[in-house]
């Protein structure tokens, strides 16, 4: 006879303990479970090292080309450079002679003032023999100093020392007479090649 189900005097009878699976089955299940729960590692940081390298190289080139092309040109109401259709590279060789509306400047040093009406060139007192002459004495003296120094540099660096070059940066309204006086004075002080500075991009 069996005891009733709620009999407190019945003896404790635990459920039979399950027999563990074999080690091979256990390991197989463990491997399967590890594989199932495995997640791809989260990418916390984007690797932008390659992009940074590229950006740095581009930046260096950009700054270098800009510094070469801007050529420290002070564009203002006193000096507006004429426009041209040429697209050649600007030459950096030679002394910079700047003709603005108010003065002639050689290598950042003002040399001769430009009169308010420069259609007859600079004032006669600055020229060798009066208003009709083309030779501007203070300009020639400054250029001669530069030329003497450049001659030695050219001789030392293996370039032809017989003549020098000049970069002429003139305002777009400079009258032809004043331009020719400057070019003539440059020619008289052994400058044989002139680079006329212009801005690219004029319309045809």
């Amino acid at each position, binding site marked *: 006879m069996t005891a009733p189900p709620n009999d407190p005097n019945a003896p404790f009878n635990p459920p039979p303990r*399950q027999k*563990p*699976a074999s080690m091979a*089955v*256990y390991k197989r*299940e*463990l491997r399967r*479970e*590890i594989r*199932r*729960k*495995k997640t791809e590692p989260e990418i*916390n*940081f984007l*690797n*932008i090292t390659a992009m*940074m390298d590229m950006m740095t190289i581009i*930046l260096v080139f950009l*700054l270098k080309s*800009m510094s070469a*092309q*801007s*050529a420290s*040109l002070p*564009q203002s109401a006193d000096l507006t450079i*004429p*426009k*041209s259709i*040429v*697209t*050649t*590279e*600007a*030459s950096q060789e030679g002394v910079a002679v700047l003709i603005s509306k108010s003065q002639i400047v050689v290598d950042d040093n003002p040399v001769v003032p430009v009169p308010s009406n420069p*259609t*007859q060139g600079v004032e006669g007192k600055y020229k060798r023999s009066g208003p009709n002459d083309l030779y501007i004495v203070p300009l020639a003296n400054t250029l001669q100093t530069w030329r003497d120094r450049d001659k030695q540099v050219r001789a030392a660096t293996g370039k032809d020392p017989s003549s020098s070059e000049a970069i002429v940066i*003139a*305002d*777009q*309204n*400079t*009258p*032809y007479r004043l*331009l020719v006086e400057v*070019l*003539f004075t440059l*020619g008289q002080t052994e*400058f*044989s*090649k*002139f*680079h*006329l*500075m*212009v*801005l*690219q*991009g*004029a319309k*045809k």
Partner: protein
Amino acid sequence: MERLSAQQRSKIRRLSEPKELAPDEEGGELNIVPFLDIITNVLMFVLATVSVTFTATLDTFPPRAGGAGARAPTTPTLGLTVILVNEGFSVKARGGNVAPGCNDVGPGLAVPKGQIDGKPDYDYPQLNACVKKLKNASDEFKGETTVTISASPNIPYQAIISTMDAVRKNDDNGEDLFPDVNFGLAR
């Protein structure tokens, strides 16, 4: 089939949990995002402040006072001279003045000023057509690349540069016409 016991299942559950990496075991990447922010700002300021002016240079030679001491050429030369005056371009070739229309020798301005955008201005396309016609007039002039440019004292520099541009290349096919410029002195 064999079944796993509760103990084995529990152990498998415990062992199969993905391991948390310690901070020192994570990939060693430097956080350069703030640095990039700074660089980007600096770059924008640099680009905004640098005034980009694309310049070029036109190469020329000292002005010549013309005539004296020059040897007579052994072959016929064009000897092109363009003179800017207030009314237009006077063109001289082979020692004679080119007549209006650039077809013949005679008095007058070869290319007078025209109406450009409703106001009188130098007619650079016409000048280009004129020098092209003169250069193509004879095979002997094909190799000639030098032009002398002169002007009245009051002519602005921009007009000189535009004239140099007009005689430099053929507008139609880009061929060189007279790229070598000498400045002349009005006597």
